[in-house]
Structure formats: C-alpha cells, structure tokens
C-alpha cells in the first residue's frame, strides 16, 4: 500500500468527521446538552438538500444556500420548544428526548423517502481529482477538509471575537449570573442550536455528495461525531478537528490493512485515546 496516500486520505476523511462533530461540540460546549439526534438531523438536512437540488434543478452547493437558513430556523424552534424544556440539573431528560427525536426523525424520513439509498449529484466534481506530487487527492475530500477548517475558524472567531460569543461563553459558565448582565439564556441557547444547524447543513452537503445515504445512517454519524468530540476534549473546536482526523486516519489505515477493519479501527483508536487521555487531547482548563 501507499503509506503517504493512506495518511492523506485519512486526514481528509477526518475533515468530514470534524464537520459531523463541530455542531455537536458547539451545543455541548454551551449548554451541556448531548443531542442524540444530531446524526439524524444531518441526514434530514441531506434530504432537504436533495429535494431542493432536484426540484429547482440546482447544484447541491447552491441548494445549501437555501437549506441553511431553513435548518437555522429548525434549530431555533427545536431548541426553543423542545430541547430547552429538557435542560436542568438532571441530565436524563435531554438524552431521552433527543433519543426519541432520533427515532422519530428516522421513521419520518423512511416514510417520506423510503429506504432507498440516495446521493447528491455534484456532477463532474464527484470524480475530479488533483495531483499533488506523489499523491492524487479527490477534489471533494479536499473541499470537505477545507470547509471543516473554515467552519472551525469561523466558529472560533464567533466565540472569541464577538459580543455574541462572549455571551455564549458567559452563559455556558453561569447562566444565572449571565441573566444579571441582561443576557437571556434561552435566546443564547436557541442561537447556539440554530448555528449548529448551519454547520449540520454543511456536513450534510459533503455526506450526501461523497457517498450514498438513507434514513437509517444517522446514528452511525452521531457515533463518529461523538468520538471526535471526546477524543479532542469536550468543548475545544480544534480538538474536535484533531479527533476527527484521529478517527479518519485509524479508519483508512485499518481499511488499508484489511477492508473489514475500517469501522472497527476507528472505534479502537477512540478507546485507546480514552484509555491514555480520559479527558481528550485538548481538555479545557476547567469545567
């Protein structure tokens, strides 16, 4: 096997997992809410992209510009009317409700779109590749990785350079004291979930253009996302990218040795990191 090629493909695959994970990481970082329906929301966005692209005859990349605000609204309403009601000292209600949401979404998608697997048609882009010296890389994987970097930079800028970001961090630290500053935690949380759904739309774009999807694949994407977040250290976005790359690399290397080992290798890498660094590669200084 070509080692360099395997490593490059693994790193690029990590970009996709980082995109799956960034929204999850954002929501968890701000409100300590684990959204078990995150993977299914990505699949939902992929179907919305599919409909928009096919009905309007658009490239999925253009369709994303229409789906993103829609997902933003869905995220806002979901947080405002469903997830927000589950937040509290007890961590069980959000888990139960998002688990239920996951199942409901899968069944609704199954009802609406059948179990057939689908794909977003990205035309010539799907097979395009560029030669980078010793390796040749697909344009789509490259775009995926670049998007992951842009998303993480944008989220970090938002977090550390804007007034909204300050309010996010303050609310995450201490919602009651944030209220004394005039911050409405409920709005902050709705905004966070809405922004996470923008990232979900981007994740769905690459999920759907790179491979086939069907209504049942959400939970597996959730697991990759989850593992990336935990490997990276809860709440650190660059850590989430590192986590995604770790899983991507493990999967590609595993698959290069034996194709049946692809998925398993990712999980083993996750368990190894948990064993050696239980708080992840880039843990926050305090929690």
């Amino acid at each position, binding site marked *: 096997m070509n080692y360099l090629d395997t490593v490059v493909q693994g790193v690029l695959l990590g970009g996709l997992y980082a995109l799956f994970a960034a929204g999850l990481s954002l929501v968890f970082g701000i409100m300590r809410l684990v959204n078990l329906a995150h993977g299914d929301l990505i699949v939902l966005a992929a179907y919305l992209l599919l409909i928009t692209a096919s009905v309007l005859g658009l490239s999925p990349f253009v369709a994303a510009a229409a789906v993103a605000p829609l997902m933003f609204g869905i995220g806002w309403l979901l947080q405002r009317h469903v997830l927000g009601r589950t937040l509290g000292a007890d961590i069980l209600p959000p888990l139960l409700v998002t688990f239920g949401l996951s199942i409901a979404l899968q069944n609704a998608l199954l009802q609406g779109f059948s179990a057939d697997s689908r794909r977003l048609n990205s035309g010539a882009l799907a097979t395009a590749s560029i030669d980078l010296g010793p390796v040749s890389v697909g344009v789509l994987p490259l775009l995926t990785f670049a998007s992951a970097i842009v998303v993480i930079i944008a989220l970090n800028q938002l977090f550390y350079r804007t007034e909204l970001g300050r*309010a996010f*961090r303050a609310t995450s630290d201490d919602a009651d*004291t944030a*209220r004394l500053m005039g911050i409405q935690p409920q709005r902050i949380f709705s905004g966070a979930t809405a922004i996470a759904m923008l990232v979900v739309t981007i994740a769905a774009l690459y999920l759907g253009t790179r491979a086939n999807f069907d209504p049942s694949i959400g939970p597996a994407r959730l697991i990759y996302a989850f593992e990336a977040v935990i490997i990276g250290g809860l709440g650190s976005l660059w850590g989430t990218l590192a986590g995604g790359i770790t899983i991507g690399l493990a999967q590609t290397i595993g698959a290069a040795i034996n194709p049946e080992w692809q998925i398993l290798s990712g999980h083993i890498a996750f368990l190894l990191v948990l064993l050696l660094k239980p708080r992840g590669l880039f843990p926050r200084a305090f929690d």
Partner: protein
Amino acid sequence: MCLLKTNRLAAHYNDFQALFAVDLHLDAGETVAIIGANGAGKTTLLRSLCGALANAPEQIVFDGEPVGALSAEQVVRRGIAMVPEGRKLFPSLSVEENLQIGGYAGGAGGFWNLAKLYELFPVLGERRRQPATRLSGGQQQMVAIGRALMSNPKVLLCDEISLGLAPAVIRDIYNALPGIRSQGAGVILVEQDISRALSAANRFYCIMEGRVTLSGEPENASRDAIHDAYFGVGA
C-alpha cells in the same frame, strides 16, 4: 428624589418565607447600608431588587414603575445592576471581557466605560488580558464592581464586597465608592461588617430574620440599639 422603594416586600423560597413586609427606599446619589447577621435575608433582599427572585409587581417600585415581577435580564436594562455575593466572575472570560459583558444590557454612552474603569482601578488595565479568575480576591472584586458599572446603572447593589479581603484591599475598594456615587448612582451596600458599612453610608437598615428591626442615620443610632437590632433584644 426617591429612586427605588419597596412596599411591604415579601420573598419566599418555596414554603420558606425569607423576607416579611420590608419597607425601604433609596434616593439618587445616596448610599444605604443593609446590615444583618448570617441568614438575616440581606442577599434575598438584593436578589429581589435585581429581579433574580420574583416578587409581586407593586412591592418594588423603581423610577415610579412597578418592577417587582420583572426578570433579572429586564431589571438590569431599567438600570439596576448587581455585584453578586462571591463576585461570580465568568471564568472563561478575560478581565476585559468580564467588564465588556457588563455592558451587554446597554448603557453605552454613559459615564462608565472601559477607559474610566481602568482609571478607577488601574490594576485592571494592567491585567486586562488575563482570565478574570487568575486575579487576587480584591482585584476580582474590582472586576465585579466594574462589570456592574459598565451598564451605567442608576442603582448599584453590592453584596458583601469586603468579604474575605485584607483590610488594605477593602480600603481601596471603599475609596472607589465616592467616585461611583458622584455619578449620581444610588448605592445599596450589604455588609456583615457593621462599622465598615455604617461609615460609608448616609442611612442604614438593619435586618433580622427577614424583618427591618432598625433604620436611620448612622450618626444618630446608638451602639446598643444597633446591637439589639442586629442580634435581637437580650442576646
């Protein structure tokens, strides 16, 4: 001019009543001390005033309007800012960001801004990029006060700002009060340290077990009367 007034203010934690028919008032530019022993209800009173605890609307009147039932995020927009007990700085935010977030509710364009606060507490300017929780206790207290001032409030509520600080540091912080008052804000100071509070205040209220047991001007109150009002007669 009466800025803030309570009318038979009552406060509850579920079945437990923590305040009973408290009547007090605060004028613009005035400093009022609230003294009382552990558990007397001082923090409960401030939490009611700043909206963190809900009360009946008419029980708190601010600028002529009933605000008792408003939430904390609404009350701070009206112009009542709180320096909470234990400072409650945001650990993920730098010193400067903690100050900036104090202006989230508005008040930009008033007297207080970052530059003015760094004049009031120069050490905060020197350490403005550091995480707020890396500072000493006294400096953290300055951040907490500065954060509240950033909304340019008409009323500043201070809950035990001298707690746990060295006397020299307490003096520094109290020395900043006249400058704050001179901008026209009314200040309510909650302290367990009676003499410290009384020396800084125009008037005081003593609370015991949720009731006002004595009020007046510090120079007209005898030590014995304050002792009885603080600990209970015959204690």
